């Protein structure tokens, strides 16, 4: 018969209260400091894992996984399709090199210099290939650059990079067999019809108290996520694609976007970010400090080598180019998602996870500080007049 101590550990309400208490504390600190609640939740998770002995449970794992899926979905749904279409060529070029070079650089460093195993090194490459759209957006709002064409180009390029990261995570560890074919076939079919279907659901049933449109989206996310797992792929891949597919619907239906965000930020993402911090070992941070600094440098240099010449080729002025390159070096959400995928699937161990997550957090902070301190473009502040100009690519007759 279990003792009273065991009962406390198994008491789902007390465990939930502990996690939600930490999430609430993180919210309060975040509001007070003006720092993202996600970052604070990770740091609170680090403290809880190292000093309070907090552990994950099966249902926490589910909520955290659902949270990371919903975060990925929202990241896809937040894209501005019009801006992406307008800046298609430079965004694709900058976004692609911004993903692939850091992936190659971090993989090579982890594999040959740090002597990680092949799959662990691949996880390092994926985790450090990211660019945080949200971090970039936050910095650009502060400077007013989000209202300029340069800002919109940078954001569009970030989305391309994120898509590359999600794609790498989705295919690198997948099994290419009949399940993969089934997953791809059903995903294409669903994505093709999803915008129309969602509009139909909203028009016929939308915004009732039973929220059929949200349940419909969850059904799609769970179903495609399940198929992805059968193909040994990762559920974030279909989640991002579903977000991209319905971005146009979400742009017009802000109520739906607000409700999805409320569900995500109040109940699900706190479990994800707290869990992401939970497995960061402080002793491993201390012993791996040199490797963390080296990987951060590799990421920033690789981003620079990739983004700088491409952005320059599209006519960005020197200062704007430096700013763009540094902002493209940031990362947070997809970096932690990739690292946690590696840990959950036993591809990396806790020490490697610690190094990757700490590097990812560093990549959210260090390039941002350098960019803001030394390279902020001069932007007319109040009325949104464009600054940070770059040469818009000429439209070809075939462009639509």
């Amino acid at each position, binding site marked *: 018969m279990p003792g009273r101590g065991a009962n406390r550990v198994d008491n789902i309400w007390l465990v939930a209260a502990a996690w939600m208490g930490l999430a609430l504390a993180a919210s309060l600190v*975040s*509001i007070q*400091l*003006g*720092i*993202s*609640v*996600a*970052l604070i939740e990770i740091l609170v998770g680090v403290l809880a894992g190292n000093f309070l002995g907090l552990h994950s449970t099966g249902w926490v794992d589910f909520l955290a996984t659902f949270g990371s899926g919903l*975060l990925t979905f*929202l*990241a896809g749904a*937040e894209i501005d399709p019009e801006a992406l279409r307008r800046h298609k060529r430079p965004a694709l070029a900058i976004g692609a090199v911004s993903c692939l070079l850091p992936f190659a650089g971090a993989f090579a460093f982890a594999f040959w210099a740090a002597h990680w195993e092949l799959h662990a090194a691949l996880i390092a490459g994926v985790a450090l290939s990211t660019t*945080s*759209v*949200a*971090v970039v*957006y*936050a910095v650009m*709002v*502060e*400077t*007013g650059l989000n209202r300029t064409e340069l800002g919109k180009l940078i954001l569009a390029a970030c989305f391309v990079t994120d898509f590359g990261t999600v794609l790498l995570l989705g295919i690198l560890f997948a099994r290419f067999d009949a399940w993969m074919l089934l997953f791809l076939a059903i995903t294409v079919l669903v994505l093709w019809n999803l915008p129309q279907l969602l509009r139909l659901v909203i028009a016929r049933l939308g915004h009732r108290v039973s929220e059929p449109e949200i349940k419909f989206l969850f059904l799609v996310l769970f179903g495609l996520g399940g198929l992805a797992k059968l193909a040994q792929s990762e559920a974030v891949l279909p989640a991002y694609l579903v977000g991209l597919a319905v971005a146009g619907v979400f742009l017009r239906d802000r109520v739906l*976007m*607000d409700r999805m*965000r409320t569900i*995500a*930020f109040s109940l699900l*993402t706190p479990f994800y*970010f707290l869990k992401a911090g939970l497995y960061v070992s402080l002793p491993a941070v201390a012993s791996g400090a040199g490797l963390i600094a080296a990987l951060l440098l590799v990421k920033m240099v690789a981003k620079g080598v990739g983004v700088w010449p491409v952005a320059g080729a599209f006519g960005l002025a020197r200062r704007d180019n430096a700013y763009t390159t540094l902002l493209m070096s940031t990362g*947070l*959400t997809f970096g932690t998602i990739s690292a946690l995928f590696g840990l959950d699937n036993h591809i990396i161990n806790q020490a490697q996870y610690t190094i990757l997550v700490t590097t990812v957090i560093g990549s*959210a*902070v260090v390039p*941002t500080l350098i960019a803001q301190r030394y390279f902020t473009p001069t932007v*007319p*502040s*109040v009325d949104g007049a464009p600054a940070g100009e770059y040469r818009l690519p000429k439209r070809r007759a075939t462009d639509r």
Partner: protein
Amino acid sequence: MFAKILVGLDGSAAAQHALEQALDMAQLTHGVVTVLSVEEKLPAYAATVGEMEDEQAFKGEYFRKIHDQARRLAAAKGVPLQTQTVSGHAADQLVRTAREGGHTLLVIGHTGHSRLHNLFLGSTADRVVEHAPCPVLVTRQQAGGSS
């Protein structure tokens, strides 16, 4: 002189007092007052764009309310008043707006941070006074309520 007055408004009692002083000044000079509110403490290092948008919407709604109050106050005194909301650091945005808008007077309230805060960060008033392109009036509420 002082025909274009810029005043920082963040909803605090000190800023409200500064607004009243600016309106009184504009009455005397037949000037125009521009109210500038700065969305500070937007979440840095955000995880989603939505986090930023929600926080901006929350602060935007707050500033809309205090701008409505400012308009009513200005209308009662017969002073033309414009409002602007921008994101960033208060001191930087006040100085930048004053410079770009060609304002002839900048009015701010003294909020009185702790000595420790001022030692490390400096007050908004200090930074504005140091960098403003025009005369700066820093108003201070006395215990009785007047400056």
